[in-house]
């Protein structure tokens, strides 16, 4: 008996394999090994990934290479991680139609769209073989299976067409009745720089064929050939496109990311300040949240403990927005500013005042814009935030006036550190915003 020439590709200790007599899986294993051998792919660069089902058992445990035998449907997603994790590897998925086109169809769709450099050998035997021959998304209309005993009421998916439409760089369909051509198609898929799918139309006489008047492998192979002859089954290259491969695109992203890093900033001075619970409330678009973020960041850079949460309505403008800050030189226990506990409330509009007044503790400081004063309680401090912003050059810089006022009036952070933080975070109208901040500081100091 002559030795099988590709035996060195098999895990011999795992033989005999578990495929049924007449299964097309042997042809897939054989043609894949032949393609690898012909191409001279270094074995230790190969990673074979499979899912669950009879076809997932073609590479695992039979083919001797790094093998990742995964969960049902997820092989392509696992393989995406392998290929992106180490692009020097030749990552190949070999799995079945139920696994890759049914439960895992979404991953196939998006790996093709992403054009990640994978070769996927989808073995389509029209059924869920391992579980005994249930109807699959690839089962032809009217076929008999264990879960379509009166004929399949559904149409089969054209998975090669779907992959092509999703953007796969290379798609071919081939039958196990044409092993030589299949070797070439597998080789072309592996040479493709991008997502390549080979749909192998394969036979399962044991649980599919025998229920559909094709109880032997030769009958099934003849059925395939007859379909090709009748023009009902297209084989060969289905699609070939030249699109940017995903990992190359990721490398371009890395280059851009490196060139856009922020310069390092100088260390800020330590600064102890007043401990308080604060809420700044206004309308969406007034920059309340930005003011809170800058104040919090500056105080944090001064070595203070700061905890900040924010709320904003779903409307970009017009809904209420607020920022809560807890500033302390000791430990902060709360996970939010509790209602009735705030030491300070800044309310920039009458509706913000109405909505947030209850957060203020009795005897707490209430600061309002002068335009809001008439609806505010008599003990409120009115500051001309809006007028000062206009004086700085733009009413939209109101939040910077608020920031300057709070920083100076309540000693919440080092003024210079807040200025530096504004410079880092404010992109538009920087000089106006700086001026607005300074006017806020002056307003506090002259009060």
């Amino acid at each position: 008996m002559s030795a099988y020439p590709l035996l060195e590709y098999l895990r011999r200790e795992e033989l005999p394999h578990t495929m049924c007599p007449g299964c097309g899986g042997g042809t897939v294993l054989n043609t894949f090994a032949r393609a690898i051998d012909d191409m001279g792919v270094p074995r230790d660069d190969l990673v074979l990934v499979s899912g669950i089902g009879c076809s997932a058992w073609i590479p695992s445990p039979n083919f001797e290479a790094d093998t990742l035998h995964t969960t049902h449907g997820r092989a392509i997603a696992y393989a995406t991680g392998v290929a992106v994790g180490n692009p020097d590897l030749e990552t190949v998925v070999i799995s079945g139609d139920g696994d890759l086109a049914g439960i895992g169809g979404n991953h196939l769709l998006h790996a093709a769209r992403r054009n990640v450099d994978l070769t996927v050998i989808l073995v389509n035997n029209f059924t869920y073989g391992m579980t005994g021959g249930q109807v699959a998304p690839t089962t032809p209309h009217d076929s008999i299976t264990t879960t379509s005993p009166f004929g399949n009421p559904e149409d089969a998916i054209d998975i090669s067409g779907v992959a092509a439409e999703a953007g796969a760089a290379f798609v071919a369909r081939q039958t196990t009745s044409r092993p030589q051509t299949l070797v070439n198609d597998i080789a072309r898929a592996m040479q493709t720089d991008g997502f390549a799918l080979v749909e192998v139309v394969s036979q399962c006489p044991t649980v599919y064929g025998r229920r559909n008047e094709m109880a032997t492998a030769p009958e099934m192979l003849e059925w395939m050939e007859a379909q090709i002859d009748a023009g009902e089954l297209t084989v060969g290259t289905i699609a070939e496109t030249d699109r940017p491969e995903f990992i190359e695109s990721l490398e371009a992203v890395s280059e851009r990311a490196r060139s856009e890093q922020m310069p390092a900033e100088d260390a800020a001075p330590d600064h102890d300040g007043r401990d308080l619970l604060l809420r700044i409330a206004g309308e969406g678009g007034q920059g309340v949240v930005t003011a809170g973020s800058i104040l919090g960041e500056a105080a944090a850079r001064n070595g203070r403990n700061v905890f900040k949460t924010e709320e904003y309505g779903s409307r970009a403008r017009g809904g209420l927005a607020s920022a809560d800050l807890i500033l302390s030189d000791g430990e902060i226990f709360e996970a939010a500013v509790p209602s009735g506990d705030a030491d300070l409330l800044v309310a920039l509009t009458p509706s913000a005042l109405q909505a947030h007044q209850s957060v203020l503790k009795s005897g707490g400081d209430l600061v309002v814009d002068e335009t809001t004063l008439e609806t505010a309680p008599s003990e409120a401090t009115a500051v001309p935030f809006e007028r000062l912003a206009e004086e700085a050059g733009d009413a939209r810089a109101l939040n910077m006036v608020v920031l300057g006022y709070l920083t100076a009036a309540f000693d919440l952070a080092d003024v210079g550190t807040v200025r530096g933080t504004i410079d880092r975070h404010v992109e538009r109208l920087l000089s106006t915003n700086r001026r607005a901040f300074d006017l806020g500081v002056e307003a506090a100091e002259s009060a």
Partner: protein
Amino acid sequence: MTESAPLTPTDVLQPGNQFLTGDEAIAYGAIYAGCRFFAGYPITPASEVAETMAEALPAVGGRYVQMEDELGSIAAVIGAAWAGRMAMTATSGPGFSLMQENLGYATMTETPMVLVDVQRSGPSTGQATLPAQGDVQQARWGTHGDHPAIVLSPATVQEAFDMTVRAFDLAEQYRTPVVLLADGVIGHASESLTVPESVSVTRREVATPAEETYFGDPSVAPMPQFGEGLRAHVTGSTHESDGMRDVKTRSVHDSLVRAIHEKIDRDRAELIEFETVGDEDVDELVVSYGITGRTAAGAVRQLRDRGRSIGHLRLLTLWPFPDQVIESRTADVSRVYVPELNLGQVAREVERAAPAPVESLDRIGGEPWTVADLVAAIEGDQ
């Protein structure tokens, strides 16, 4: 295309005083720890972990991939781990549910990875934008079959950073997935923290052809890495120590599954971290964790200031559950309080371990405990 040299973690986040959200701190903690692969799918309140990774990871030589769903996210993370990367994904309750099957795969194949669950209020879509601590038991028992779990839960943004680093350290040390159980408050709140100059994380021990055992070693076998010539066989099916499948022999399954438990159980003492306030002779004890841990610390301080003999045990490691710590700390107390943002998921565990009566201070609805509410709840129980 030749890439320029990667930047270092300190180039994307300077050491020193910083002000970050918990989600950002988790992402940067991962980058400091050596994570160089992230795959994720948007979900409130965890999306900012992905956003921060997308911004910072490419600069340091990492790869960010936005997958088509959470099933694919964790799958890609496991694949990248076998290709040699330290890898992470982040999600919230609904996505965590979808990840459970592959989380079990990572446990069974002994794959190091970090899974972040920024908990929100469930079940189902629940209060999608509001925080909760409802996934404590899902983190322990979410995947099917007998399995161990390492789960850490931060109370502050500083801990979100530090525990992400520790999660990677433990994942690499024990070759196992580690879950970081944050919540919507910590994820979205910004807080001051100190970023260290560098962090120390166990380096993955990569297997060589000289090794005979790749799996199922209670002392943790070196991990095969794809592309290194080992022709490794990795499967979620029951396997021998060389990775080859044997799904019929009772003893093979028994020794594999017991080994993946034992490698973690034998180091319980080192794995379990907690903080205590008060002597061992206090009359009462509060047991807390995660976001509720910080409020509980404030409540215990107030109650102690008022002269009440009450201590605090704050759990940093949730799983393995610190049964012995609970048992010894509660042996002489008259009552144990367990405040949490669920209907008593940890209270039940404490009850199991504590000889003293346990009062579950459960709260759901999306509002975290405040110090005053907690003080009132404990005082009202007198």
